[in-house]
C-alpha cells in the first residue's frame, strides 16, 4: 500500500486535507475514484502532484503531495 496526501482546493467540492491509502501501482485516476470524484468530473479538475500537473493515467508514489483544483485561467 502507499499513502498520499490529498488537499482539495475546489470550491464546489468538500474541502480539507486527508491521507489516502492506495494499492501499489495506483494512478491519479484511481486516487480520484477513491476520493469519490466521478470520471465525468475529471475534465474540470487540475491535479497537481509535488508541484507538477498530472494526468489520470499517471502512477502515484508513496508520500506524494497532491492538490486538486478547478481547471481555470485567471484574470
Amino acid at each position: 500500500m502507499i499513502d498520499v496526501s490529498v488537499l482539495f482546493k475546489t470550491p464546489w467540492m468538500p474541502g480539507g486535507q486527508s491521507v489516502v491509502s492506495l494499492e501499489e501501482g495506483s494512478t491519479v485516476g484511481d486516487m480520484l475514484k477513491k476520493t469519490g470524484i466521478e470520471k465525468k468530473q475529471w475534465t474540470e479538475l487540475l491535479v497537481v502532484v509535488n508541484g507538477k500537473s498530472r494526468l489520470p493515467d499517471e502512477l502515484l508514489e508513496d508520500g506524494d503531495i497532491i492538490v486538486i483544483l478547478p481547471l481555470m485561467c485567471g484574470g
Partner: protein
Amino acid sequence: MKAIGGITVLNSVVRVNMNSLEAIIEKLPEKYLMLSGRSLTSKVVSEEVDPAADPLGPGNRLVFACGLLAGTGLSSANRLSAGAKSPLTGGIKESNAGGMAAFRMARLGIRAIIIEGEPPGDGRYILVVDRQGPRLEEAGWISMAGVYEKTSKILSKYGGRVAVLLIGPSGERLQLSSGIAVNDPGGNPGRYCGRGGLGAVMGSKGLLAVVLDDSGVSIEKPVRAEEFNSRVKAVSNWIKENPLTAEVYNKYGTAAMLSNTNALGGLPTRNFSTGTFEGANKIDGYAVYNTIVSRGGDGTPTHACMPGCRIKCSNVFPGSDGRCLVSPLEYETIAMVGANCGIEDLDAIARINYLCNDYGVDTIEVGCALAVVMESGSIPFGDAEAAVRAVEEIGKDSLLGKIIASGAVTAGRVLGVKRVPAVKGQGIPGYDPRSIKGTGVTYITSPMGADHTAGSTARASIKHHLKEGQVELSRMVQLWCSLMDSLGLCIFLGTAIKDRRVLADLVSHRLGRDVTLEDLMEIARETMEVEREFNRRAGITEVHDRLPEFFYHEVNPVNGSVFDIYSEDLEK
C-alpha cells in the same frame, strides 16, 4: 446623432484630429463590416500608422473599438479594445477592459473612435460624444488630477450615467506603464486597458478623457431580434450551469487562480526566483473572499464590471473599517504586487492597487518593476510599508517614482539588475513560464509581448512543466483569444460556452447576415497576421521571440523546470 445608411448596425466611426481639434463622424467603411474589438483596432493601426512612427508622436493613432455584440443583452460582451503602436514594446498593441465604455459606444451606434495627430502647444482636451455628435472640450480643469478625482469631476459635469475613458497623471507625463481607465456601472474607474503603455499614447495626444453619453439616442436592435435573444438566453443558462462561471469566478473572483499557480510552481515569487509563495494562503481567493465577507460594509465578493454580465468576477475590497479600499482586487495584481514582491498583506496590496489606479499605471508592470527595485537591494522583498511608500513616489513624480512608472525593463537598466522578467519590453504577468510553458510560448510568440490575455494555457489538461505539446497549445489558445478579443467578449465567457457556433449565430442575427464560426476564426487568424506584419515592419522579428536568459538556465526550485522551448521548436 443619426445612424448613417448602408451598414445597419454600429456603422459610425468617430475620427478626431488633434492637430485641427476637429471631431467628425464617418461612415464605417464596408471593408470593416465584420471587424470589431481587437480585429478593428489592429486593422486600423496597421493601415494608418507607419510602423516606424514614434509611438508618442503625431503619426501614431489611438483607436478604441467595441465588439459586434456590445450594447445588447448578451452577458460579458462589453469589453472595450484600445489599440495603437505601443511605446513599451515598440510594436502593435491591443489592450481591453470591461466597464461602461463599450456598452455606451455601441448604444451610440459607434464601432470605433480614432484619435490622430497631436494638439498645438500644451492643450489638454476631453472628447465628448453624445446624441449631438462628437466634440472636443477644453480639459485644463482636470489636468494632473488623479483618476478618481478626474472621474468624480467628469461625472458631476456630464452626469452620472456617462461612460468615461481616462488617463491619470502618469499618462499625462507619458510614462510607459500608463494605462487607460474605464468606469464601471457604479461609476468607479477601476477597469483598465492596462498593458502596453497606451495611456501614454493618449497623453501624447493631449486627450485626458473620452465621455460617452447615449441619453436620448434610439438604440439599434439586432436585425433578427428574436433569434438573437434566444441565443442570449442559451448563453446565460450555460453560465449558470458551469461550476467555474457560476461558483468560482462568481464567488472568489480571478484570485481563485492563485491556488492553481501556487500549486504548479507557477506563482511569480520574489522577482520570479521561485514559483510557490509561503504566504499564499493569506492572499488567495479564499482569503480575499473571507476578508470581504467578514469586513462587510462596502465590500462585496460578487460584482459585475460591465452591464449585463452574469459571471460577475469583479469585487469590492473593503478595509477594516468597511470602506472600499479598491475595486476590483484581482489575480494579476495580487500575484505581481503580492507574491512577486514577497508581500502577504492583502491591505497593502489593495492600497498599492488603489494608488496605481489613481496615478493611472498598470499594476502588472508596476509589480514587475517594484520587484526589480527589490532585487536591486533598494527595498527588502516582503516589506509592505516600504513598497507602498515606493509606489507613492510615482504620485510625487520623484526619480524613484519615474523609474517604477517606466516599467520593469527601464527599472532594470537604471538599477543594474540583470534578472528582468520581460518580453519585447513588457513585464511578464502572473504565470512563471518555466512552470506553465504554454503561457511561456504565448509570451514569446504573441505580437503583444509578455501578455497573459493573449493566450493563457493554464486551463488545458496538459503537463504544464513539460515542453511537449506547448507550442501547438499556445497557438490554439492565442487564436481563440484573438477571436474573443475581436468580438469584444470576455475570455471567461469562453469557459461556459458549450458550442462555439453560438458566436457565429449571435453575430449573424445581430447583423442580419449569415456568418460561420470558420469566418470568425479566419478574422482572428488574419488579425494576428496583421499584427505580426506590423511588428516585422517595426523591426520586431522572430529574434525577439524569446524570454530573458535566466529562465533558460535558472531552475524553478518547485518543480526543477527551466524554460526549454527554443526558436527551432517554434518553427515546427
